[in-house]
C-alpha cells in the first residue's frame, strides 16, 4: 500500500503556528501564536448583492457556517431596517441554539474531550474519537446519535445540511409546520437528556481528576483580562441576540448597550510577525501582550459569556452555573481551562432553550418575512460557539455591498490565546522538555478556546495542522514539531 505525503504547511491559509523563543539559558523568553487571517475576503464581497451575503460569508468557514449565516442575516436586517416577525425570530433562535449545542458537544467529547476524559498523558494514538469510544462505548454512541438528531434539525430549518439557506433579510424563507415542530421537539428532548448525562459525567470523571484540577487551578493559566458577550433578559447569556456587555478584569461593567455600537470601543493593534490584528479596548489602550486590569486585552467565548452574565436563562444550566461559581469562589473566572466547564454550562442552556423554543406557540406562525426599508448601513452581532462575531456592511441605494468587515471570535481571542500558550509553554520550559508532549500540552492551552483556524479553507484529511517552532535568541531555528 502506498501512502501519500501531504505536507500540512502547504495550505498556508489554514494552519496555526506557535513560535517559542528561548533565552540564553534555554528558558522560554517569549511565545507567539500565528493564526490565519481572512486576507481579501471583504474586498471580494464588494459589489455583490446584499442578500447574497448570508450564503457567501458562511463559506468562510467549514466549522461554523451557521454563525456566519445568521450574523450576516442580522446585519442585513439592520441594513434594511427590517423588523423580523416573531415566528421567524423563534426559528432563527431555535436553529442557533441547536448549532451551539452541537458544536459544543463536538468539542467537549471528541475534540477537547480526549484532554478531559483520557488525560493529557494518554498515548497519542488514543487521544481521539476512537480512544473516547473505546473508553466510553455506550456514551460515545449516544453522543453520536443525539448529535445526528441535532444535525437533522439544522437541516430541516436551515434547508441544507451544511450551508444553511433559510435566513433572509427581515426573516426566514418559509414557515415551519406542526409536523416539523414534533420532530424538533423529539430531538430537543434527547438533547436535554444528554446534557444531563454530560453534567453527571463531568462531575464523576472529569472534575475530580487531579490532572484536570491542576490545569484548572494553575496560577500561570489564570490571568485577568476583560470580557465581552451578548446578554438577554435578566442578563443571562443569549447566543442569538441581545445587548452587548463588557466587564472589566475586576468584574465591573464597562459597557452595556446596542451590540453594534460597541465596535467604537475597540481598536486593533498590528504586529509585524502576523497578519492577524489584535483587538483591544480603546479605553485601556494597547499595553503589549500582557494580562491585567490595565491591559486592553479582552476575551470572548464561553468563559467570557459566563463572566458578563449574572445568571443563566434556563433552570438546569443555572444549577450548573452555580456549581461553577462555587468552585471558583465567584466571578470573574479567569482560568483558561474553565473554558471547558463554561462550555458545558452553555451546552445545557442551549439544549433547554431548544426545547423551550420548540414549544413556543408562535414557532409555526405563517408570517416569516418583515417589510424591508431602503438599503443602508448595519451591524449584525451574534455569539458564535467560540465567541462574539461581528458583521458590518454598507449597501448602496441599489442594494450592493459597498463595504464589508467581519471580526471573528478567534481574532478577538488572539491575544488571550497567545497569553495562555505562553503560560503553558513556560510551565513546561521549567522541565526543559521540548518534544511531542510539549506539542500536546501547548495545544491543550489553545484548544481550550476551541479556536477556529479554518476560516476560508478546507482540509480533506480533516486536520488543522499545528506547527511549533523553537528559536534561540539569535533567531536560529532549534526545533520544529509538526503534526
Amino acid at each position, binding site marked *: 500500500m502506498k501512502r*501519500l505525503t501531504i505536507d500540512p504547511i502547504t495550505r498556508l491559509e489554514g494552519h496555526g503556528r506557535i513560535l517559542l523563543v528561548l533565552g540564553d539559558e534555554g528558558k522560554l523568553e517569549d511565545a507567539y501564536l500565528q493564526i490565519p487571517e481572512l486576507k481579501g475576503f471583504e474586498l471580494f464581497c464588494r459589489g455583490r448583492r446584499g442578500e447574497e451575503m448570508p450564503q457567501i460569508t458562511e463559506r468562510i468557514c467549514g466549522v461554523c457556517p451557521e454563525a456566519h449565516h445568521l450574523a450576516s442575516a442580522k446585519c442585513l436586517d439592520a441594513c434594511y431596517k427590517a423588523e423580523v416577525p416573531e415566528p421567524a425570530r423563534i426559528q432563527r433562535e431555535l436553529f442557533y441554539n441547536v448549532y451551539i449545542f452541537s458544536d459544543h458537544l463536538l468539542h467537549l467529547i471528541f475534540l477537547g474531550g480526549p484532554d478531559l476524559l483520557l488525560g493529557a498523558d494518554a498515548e497519542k494514538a488514543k487521544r481521539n474519537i476512537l480512544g473516547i469510544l473505546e473508553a466510553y462505548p455506550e456514551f460515545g454512541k449516544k453522543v453520536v446519535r443525539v448529535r445526528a438528531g441535532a*444535525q437533522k434539525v439544522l437541516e430541516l430549518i436551515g434547508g441544507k445540511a451544511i450551508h444553511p439557506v433559510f435566513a433572509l433579510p427581515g426573516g426566514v424563507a418559509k414557515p415551519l409546520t406542526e409536523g416539523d415542530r414534533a420532530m424538533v421537539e423529539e430531538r430537543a428532548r434527547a438533547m436535554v437528556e444528554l446534557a444531563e448525562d454530560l453534567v453527571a459525567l463531568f462531575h464523576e470523571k472529569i472534575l475530580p481528576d487531579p490532572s484536570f484540577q491542576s490545569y484548572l487551578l494553575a496560577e500561570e493559566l489564570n490571568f485577568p483580562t476583560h470580557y465581552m458577550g451578548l446578554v438577554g433578559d435578566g442578563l443571562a447569556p443569549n447566543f442569538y441576540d441581545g445587548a452587548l456587555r463588557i466587564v472589566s478584569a475586576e468584574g465591573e461593567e464597562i459597557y452595556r448597550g446596542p451590540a453594534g455600537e460597541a465596535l467604537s470601543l475597540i481598536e486593533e493593534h498590528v504586529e509585524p510577525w502576523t497578519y492577524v490584528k489584535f483587538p483591544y479596548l480603546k479605553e485601556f489602550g494597547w499595553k503589549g501582550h500582557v494580562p491585567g486590569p490595565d491591559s486592553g486585552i479582552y476575551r470572548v467565548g464561553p468563559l467570557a459569556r459566563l463572566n458578563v452574565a449574572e445568571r443563566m436563562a434556563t433552570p438546569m444550566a443555572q444549577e450548573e452555573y452555580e456549581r461553577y461559581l462555587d468552585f471558583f469562589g465567584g466571578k470573574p473566572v479567569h482560568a483558561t481551562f474553565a473554558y471547558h466547564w463554561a462550555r458545558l454550562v452553555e451546552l445545557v442552556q442551549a439544549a433547554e432553550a431548544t426545547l423551550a423554543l420548540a414549544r413556543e406557540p408562535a414557532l409555526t406562525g405563517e408570517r416569516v418575512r418583515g417589510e424591508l426599508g431602503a438599503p443602508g448601513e448595519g451591524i449584525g452581532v451574534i455569539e458564535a460557539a467560540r465567541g462574539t462575531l461581528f458583521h458590518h456592511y454598507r449597501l448602496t441605494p441599489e442594494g450592493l455591498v459597498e463595504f464589508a468587515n467581519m471580526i471573528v471570535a478567534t481574532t478577538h481571542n488572539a491575544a488571550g490565546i497567545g497569553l495562555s500558550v505562553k503560560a503553558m509553554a513556560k510551565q513546561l520550559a521549567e522541565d526543559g522538555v521540548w518534544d511531542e508532549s510539549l506539542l500536546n500540552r501547548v495545544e491543550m492551552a489553545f484548544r481550550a478556546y*476551541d479556536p477556529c483556524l479554518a476560516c476560508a*479553507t478546507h*482540509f480533506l484529511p*480533516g486536520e488543522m495542522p499545528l506547527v511549533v517552532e523553537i528559536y534561540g535568541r539569535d533567531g536560529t531555528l532549534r526545533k520544529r514539531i509538526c503534526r
Partner: protein
Amino acid sequence: MVVMGRSGNASAARAIVALGNPYRTDDGAGIALLRLLAVTGDASPVTRHGEVELIEGVHDGLRLAEAILGYEEVLIVDAAPWLPVGEVRRFGLEELPDRTGYPHGLGLRGALEALRRMGEGVPAVEILAIGVPGDPPFGEGLSPEVERAIPRALAEVRRWLSGD
C-alpha cells in the same frame, strides 16, 4: 435523481461529494466539477449510470463521515494543492493520511472507522483529487490551468460511475 446539497439521507446507492470553497477560485475545483455533473446528465437516472446523489459543501472529517453514511459507494472530489497543478488523481481512502489533534476536525478515515465500530454502514470511499496552486485567492471561476483539468476529471468520474 440529482440532489444538490442534500446529505446523509442516502436515497441513492452512490454519492459524489465535492469539497471546497466556490468563492476561493481554484479551491472550488471540486464544486465546479460537481456542478458540471449536474448539467451533463451523468448523474441522472435516465443514463446508464443510474442514480447518484451530488453533495457539496461538507468540510471536516466527522461531518463528512456522517454525511456519507448509508451510501454504498462514495467518490469525494477535492482540490489538492499537494498535487502538481492540473494533475488529476484517483485513489482509495486507505491512501489518505489520517491525523488527529485538529481542534475542529477528525480525520475522515478515523471518523469513518469510529462510525463503523458503532455499527453504522460505512461506504466504500474513493478520492478524486485535482491539483491546484497553493493559497488560492478569493474570487469566482477557475484558473486556466485548473479549468483544463476539468474534462480529465470528468472522464475519471465517468469511469468511477461505470464501475472502473
